[in-house]
């Protein structure tokens, strides 16, 4: 794993993407991605928790003995999630009503404990913060993308109720496709699994194409010299 910040960002956004590479946090991924707005809100909430929890875990990494680290991390994460939960209830109440339970469940989101264990306990505070940001944005991007595709196919809208999350200034994002009622199945769980499956397949295809191109690029000079 590269320790340069750009490397960490790339890992989080693409190579080690929480949803598309690690296949972690499947529960919120399937449950809340019925619309782009829900996915974006869930992703941003998770990102906030992830950044702060990574910073805190990284700060106390020399103080906490490895025997008690898991309970300590869980208490930290639970505190942060409670804060996010209450803040969303206060300021983004409409979105909170939709995401409700899943905000509280960020506590047991394996991506957060996973990053604490896999990265924050081994790295400095700044690197951990960048890792939290990268992983969180990767997660947000994945959730928003799945949410948008399911929303588009399932209810014929894009970013419905985005102004609830981002403020009235973003009402222009809301798109409604006229004359299309939507395929209900895409909003239901099977639609989530199907969309995730096709996106995973797409990512694998892209990666193999990139790899092929890289191999061709390194291979051509040899061919010319020979």
């Amino acid at each position, binding site marked *: 794993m590269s320790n340069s910040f750009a490397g960490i960002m790339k890992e989080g956004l693409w190579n080690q993407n929480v949803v598309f590479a690690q296949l972690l946090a499947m529960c919120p991924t399937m449950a809340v991605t019925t619309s782009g707005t829900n996915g974006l809100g869930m992703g941003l909430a998770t990102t906030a928790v992830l950044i702060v929890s990574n910073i805190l875990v990284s700060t106390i990494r020399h103080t906490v003995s490895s025997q008690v680290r898991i309970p300590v991390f869980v208490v930290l994460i639970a505190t942060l999630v409670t804060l996010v939960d209450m803040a969303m209830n206060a300021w983004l109440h409409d979105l909170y009503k939709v995401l409700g339970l899943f905000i509280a469940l960020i506590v047991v989101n394996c991506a957060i404990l996973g990053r604490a264990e896999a990265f924050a306990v081994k790295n400095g505070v700044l690197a951990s913060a960048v890792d939290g940001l990268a992983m969180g944005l990767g997660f947000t991007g994945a959730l928003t993308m799945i949410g948008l595709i399911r929303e588009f196919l399932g209810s014929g809208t894009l970013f419905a109720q985005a102004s609830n999350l981002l403020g009235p200034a973003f009402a222009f994002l809301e798109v409604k496709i006229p004359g299309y*009622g939507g*395929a*209900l*199945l*895409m909003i*239901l769980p*099977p639609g989530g699994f*199907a969309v995730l*499956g096709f996106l995973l397949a797409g990512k694998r295809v892209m990666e193999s194409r990139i790899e092929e191109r890289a191999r061709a690029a390194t291979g051509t000079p040899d061919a010319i010299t020979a």
Partner: protein
Amino acid sequence: MSTAGTSSARAGSGLTAAVIASPHAHGGNSVSATMFRVKMALVPATLFSFWLFGWPSFFLWALTILSCLCFEALSLRLMGSRRIKATLLDGSALLTGWLLALSLPPWAPWWVAVLGGLIAIVIGKQVFGGIGQNVFNPAMVARVALLVSFPLPLTQWVTPLPLSPVAGPDFVHSLRQFLTSAPLPDAMVSASVLGYTKTELSRGIDLLHSLSSASAPALSWLGERSGSFGESASLLILGGGLYLLARGIISWHTPFSVLAGVAIPAAIGHQLDPAHYLSATTHLLSGAALLGAFFIATDYVTSPNTGSGQIVFGLGIGLLTWVIRTYGGYPEGMAFAVLLMNALTPVIDRLIKPRILGRDRKGKPLSIPETKES
């Protein structure tokens, strides 16, 4: 024995040690031959349905099959297969499209056919690895996905009209109806028996009254009743199924246990409370019971391998169909039941295995009684 002899003789005649892998004898059967016979068995019921429901049903049938073939070719191409033409000609995609079309409402609009082909072939079949690899019956995957996604167009039945210039729409009108997906004229909309009784029961009218009233949908062996495109002609489907049985394409285990699984609980329920449970005859003649039993549940890929496994599988489908029809939210449950039992097929095959020669059912070697040396 004789086959082993011929192959060794063949190897010996050329004085070379050519190794020929088994099997050494071929029955001459092939995927395409089997698929062809199944299609032959479907022809009478399909033709009858064309006559019954007119040109729109023909367009639906043709476009569903075309869509399945196109998506099959497209996915094979995307996967880099070199046997596109051969795979298309084996007829499996064609049969999937045919069965899907038969299970759709006869006047469904064009996009139902196209989407159905996409779901059946890409999600139902090719994603799993193509022919022989799919866990679920592709046609039923598409049927259920369409029903769940678009409840309204998928539950609009038309009253059966003979294909005559007076009663039925002509070619051009039908094509327009099919392509614009305009709402059906009210006079042509009708309910299937299962849907009708379910609605009436939910309104508090029991079966004794609802089925005797003048507006009750007809129930006939001949198939002059509303319902899915290919499911009405009970006798012709039964005939097709018996032809498949006679040609040895399917065994009796699955279809008869499906029918028994529907009929037995239906008969018991009807005996106990005729006001709330439909009779066994109604259950067998309505919806996809016969088509499902003979043509859908018997799919080689998604049903168990052993005879007794197929009986368990069939009884499960029948019972689930009856349960969904009687207590579920949807009036018809054959497609759901088939998919649920498809999911159980690997378990059934794991639990019910054929006995290996020389071993008992648990796989232990048979105890050989001591024989006297001669």
